[in-house]
């Protein structure tokens, strides 16, 4: 059996066991449930709510009811419709940022781990980005350019790739020392082949874990930015809903204005976080509770 | 009274005082579960005893034979995913496995202490070596800080380490660390010392030093030593008795000179034949039955060694042999002697 075949057998067994263990893990199941519920509600909501998120209904400052599951705000916007509407841009930004930063993170991390010459620059850049406080940087950059979803995605990718690269790099570093990599190299495998066929599959698990966690982080970061007013507060988004809540809800006593949207963000992030954490736990059994 | 009579009287007194063994393991079994379905019996109905102080025992077997598990179970240190599934460990008549936390802590180190297989890492990297020993003396020995400090230095000097009590573990060489570990193990003057492969990671010269050190301590402190190893040769001149382990079971036990001169169990025989002396002729080499040295896995039914044994017959495949006395002081678990 060639090195590649045997190592891919190891990988498949590994992946099988990772997926299998994931299915058995309770936190992962809870996370999956949350996300499933979320997607169902959003899809259903898109088609079923009669209200336009920008529509000012006469039902002003109404607590949650059958007609308005999340209540309304001070000008009568149906908060549930707003949350459903905002979900799209939040998920779009969240997922795309996570994908982008994962790809960059994996590539940079693998290169940094494998090629010692590149390690200094790549790790150094990553470390520098990690030392910059994410928020002030995001705010600074976000305020200088017209606030679009694409800009936010770019900013988030900038901030999120570094932790992934770091994790991938340490994984690659330890894998690189394994005997089967050595024998692959002496057997004549080219670097690129080794990286793609042997190292990458092993790195997949940790990359996926970080990807999932990045989605959660991205969603929280994006809504926080919108909350602060980076990005247009007049466009309905999860953050902007709470931006307006911050202005009015306390004085008007509209507790649902704060609760509903905030809880949605939290539960979605929690769903992703639970899954991401479970993957990490499965890969590193010592973390198991 | 002549000196011989005096000696005999002393021996008798010893036996009378401790008419029960200091340490007694009966039918101890330890199981490790690597997942909810995979369980492995690391130790299978072990029966062992240390009858009196100063009784030295060597435990020999290949890796995976359960030797370390044996040592850990004496201190009730088997941790998840392993657990002791049956049997009793009695120290001076007290059931170690049933001891409550406080009693167990009193028992550990003060009565029985252990030098671990990976003694390299027995010390916390952020504490000085001297502090480790002093900690034991303060918390377990009721000394105050300065007394403990002094005593720690003295203990280290006894093992040949001078003036280095304030150094950190990583600053010690392997041999020195091992000696420091031994010093720590003897800090509370235990009655039994379990040494689990203390010399495996060391080069031969250092190994000799450590063995000499242990011999000296055994003599001076009337220490009972349980020396666990996979190298049977080390045990000569070190211990008085030997127990041979295979696949979690003790297959032979007896005074070391007798066992080495006249091995009863086929596995012991095989172990000894793998040692070559200067006198071995070429014939001995070629006569060795290759299949008996290459490790076929232990059998699941019947005698575990049956898959590698050159004397195997039908009964071996169906019935498990029990460890029982064959002649005076010699125990063996083999159907050949039954």
């Amino acid at each position: 059996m060639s090195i590649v075949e045997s190592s891919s057998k190891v990988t498949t067994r590994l992946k099988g066991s990772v997926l299998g263990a994931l299915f058995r893990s309770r936190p992962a199941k809870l996370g999956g449930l949350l996300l499933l519920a979320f997607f169902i509600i959003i899809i259903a909501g898109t088609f079923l709510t009669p209200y336009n998120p920008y529509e000012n209904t006469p039902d002003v400052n109404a607590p949650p009811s059958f007609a308005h599951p999340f209540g309304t705000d001070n000008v009568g916007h149906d908060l549930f419709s707003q949350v459903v509407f905002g979900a799209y841009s939040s998920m779009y930004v969240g997922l795309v940022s996570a994908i982008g930063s994962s790809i960059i993170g994996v590539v940079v991390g693998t290169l940094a781990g494998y090629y010692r010459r590149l390690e200094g620059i790549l790790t150094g850049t990553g470390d520098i980005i990690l030392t910059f406080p994410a928020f002030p940087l995001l705010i600074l950059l976000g305020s200088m350019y017209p606030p679009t979803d694409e800009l936010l995605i770019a900013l988030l990718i900038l901030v999120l790739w570094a932790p992934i690269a770091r994790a991938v790099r340490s994984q690659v570093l330890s894998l690189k020392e394994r005997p089967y990599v050595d024998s692959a190299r002496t057997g004549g495998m080219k670097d690129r082949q080794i990286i793609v066929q042997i190292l990458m599959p092993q790195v997949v698990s940790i990359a996926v874990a970080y990807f999932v966690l990045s989605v959660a982080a991205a969603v929280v970061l994006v809504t926080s930015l919108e909350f602060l007013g980076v990005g247009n507060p007049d466009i309905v988004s999860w953050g902007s809903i709470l931006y307006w809540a911050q202005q009015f809800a306390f004085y008007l006593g509209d507790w649902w204005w704060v609760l509903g949207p905030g809880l949605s963000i939290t539960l979605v992030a929690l769903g992703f976080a639970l899954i991401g954490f479970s993957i990490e736990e499965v890969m590193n059994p010592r973390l198991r509770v | 009274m002549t000196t011989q009579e005096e000696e005999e009287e002393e021996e008798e007194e010893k036996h009378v005082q401790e008419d029960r063994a200091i340490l007694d393991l009966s039918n101890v079994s330890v199981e490790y579960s690597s997942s909810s379905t995979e369980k492995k019996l690391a130790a299978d109905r072990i029966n062992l005893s240390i009858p009196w102080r100063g009784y030295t025992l060597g435990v020999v077997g290949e890796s995976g034979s359960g030797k370390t598990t044996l040592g850990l179970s004496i201190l009730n240190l088997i941790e998840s995913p392993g657990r002791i599934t049956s049997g009793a460990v009695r120290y001076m008549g007290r059931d170690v496995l049933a001891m409550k936390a406080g009693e167990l802590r009193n028992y550990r180190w003060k009565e029985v202490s252990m030098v671990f297989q990976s003694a390299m890492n027995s010390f916390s990297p952020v504490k000085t070596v001297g502090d480790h020993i002093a900690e034991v003396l303060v918390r377990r020995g009721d000394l105050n800080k300065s007394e403990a400090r002094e005593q720690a230095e003295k203990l280290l000097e006894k093992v040949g380490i001078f003036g280095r009590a304030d150094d950190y573990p990583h600053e010690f060489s392997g041999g020195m660390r091992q000696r420091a570990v031994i010093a720590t193990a003897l800090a509370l003057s235990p009655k039994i010392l379990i040494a689990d492969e203390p010399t495996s990671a060391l080069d031969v010269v250092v190994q000799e030093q450590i063995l000499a050190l242990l011999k000296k301590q055994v003599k001076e402190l009337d220490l009972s030593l349980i020396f666990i190893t996979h190298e049977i040769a080390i045990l000569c001149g070190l211990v008085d008795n030997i127990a041979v382990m295979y696949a979690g079971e003790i297959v032979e036990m007896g005074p070391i000179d007798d066992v080495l001169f006249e091995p009863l169990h086929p596995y012991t025989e095989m172990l000894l034949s793998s040692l070559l002396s200067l006198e071995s002729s070429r014939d001995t080499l070629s006569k060795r039955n290759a299949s008996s040295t290459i490790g076929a896995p232990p059998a699941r039914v019947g005698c575990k060694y049956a898959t590698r044994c050159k004397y195997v017959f039908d009964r071996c495949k169906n019935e498990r042999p029990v460890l029982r006395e064959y002649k005076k002081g010699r125990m063996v678990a083999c159907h050949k002697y039954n």
Partner: protein
Amino acid sequence: MDFLGKRIILSLVAFFAALNLDFILPRLAPGSAAEILASGSKLPAVEVALITARFGLNQPLSTQYLLYLKNVFSWPPYFGVSYQFFPQPVTQLIAYRLVWTIILVASSFFLSFAISYTLAGISSMKRGGKFEFGSVFGSIMLWSTPAFWIGMILIWIFGVWLRLLPISGNVAFNAGTGLNYDYSVLVHAILPVLTLTAVVFGQSYFILRGAAQETLKSDYVLSARARGMTERVIAFGYVLRNSLLPVISLLGYSVASLLSAVVIVEAVFGYPGIGDLIVDGVVNRDYPVLEGSFFYVTLVVILGSLLGDFLLLKLDPRLRR
């Protein structure tokens, strides 16, 4: 020394990067640099002219760069004049605000650390119990919850419903001086500190727990147990003492994430620290303030990181050679 040397070099590089970023960015943004640095045409022409001269905005880029460096390295470093708080120089403004932010950040840091440490210690004593599961789940939940929302909920519960604590500001405007003043400061800091602690706990607990788990399975813990040490001594003296090391090595990162989070927390509570300044700066497009804040915040992070490395050197004997 090699370890510290490397870290110092890295810090210098990071500092240099921040410096350059601060120079480059405003000049890349749409609109002329002069506009941005002079906050558009919101400042009187005289000020605009002054700033243009001081920063050399109508001169070639290389000259601008040198002037910029000269401004930054003068004492006090000159970042221009704030538009919102005209004509206050940015540096002065930041200096005042920074103190308040540090009150929050330092309190939260120690509080969250103490809580994490205690929980991790108890968890490692009762392995696999409900306690451990609960604290892990709790920290995941806190990690996933947006900081501003935690703040808003706390405001609602303690400020609006229970009316127990003030919901904004750092001190009551009529607090006067002396003990009354101190008390007011304390009371106003409670909710922001709680919020910040919750956020940071979510992040730091993972790392601490991960490090603790690694340590738990190590040989020296088994040896300590064999030596008859109580679980408490093992948990705090061996497990945590050793898991402290990776946590401290991430001090720089923790400071960065704390400073990140404090921005949001101050925004929610209207707490006049540097975070609040930044947020207002965003809303009002007060670029000088933003630039200056970014610079100082990064500086604090770099210093914090160096502090962490220095502490690590002291605490981990293996690094001293």
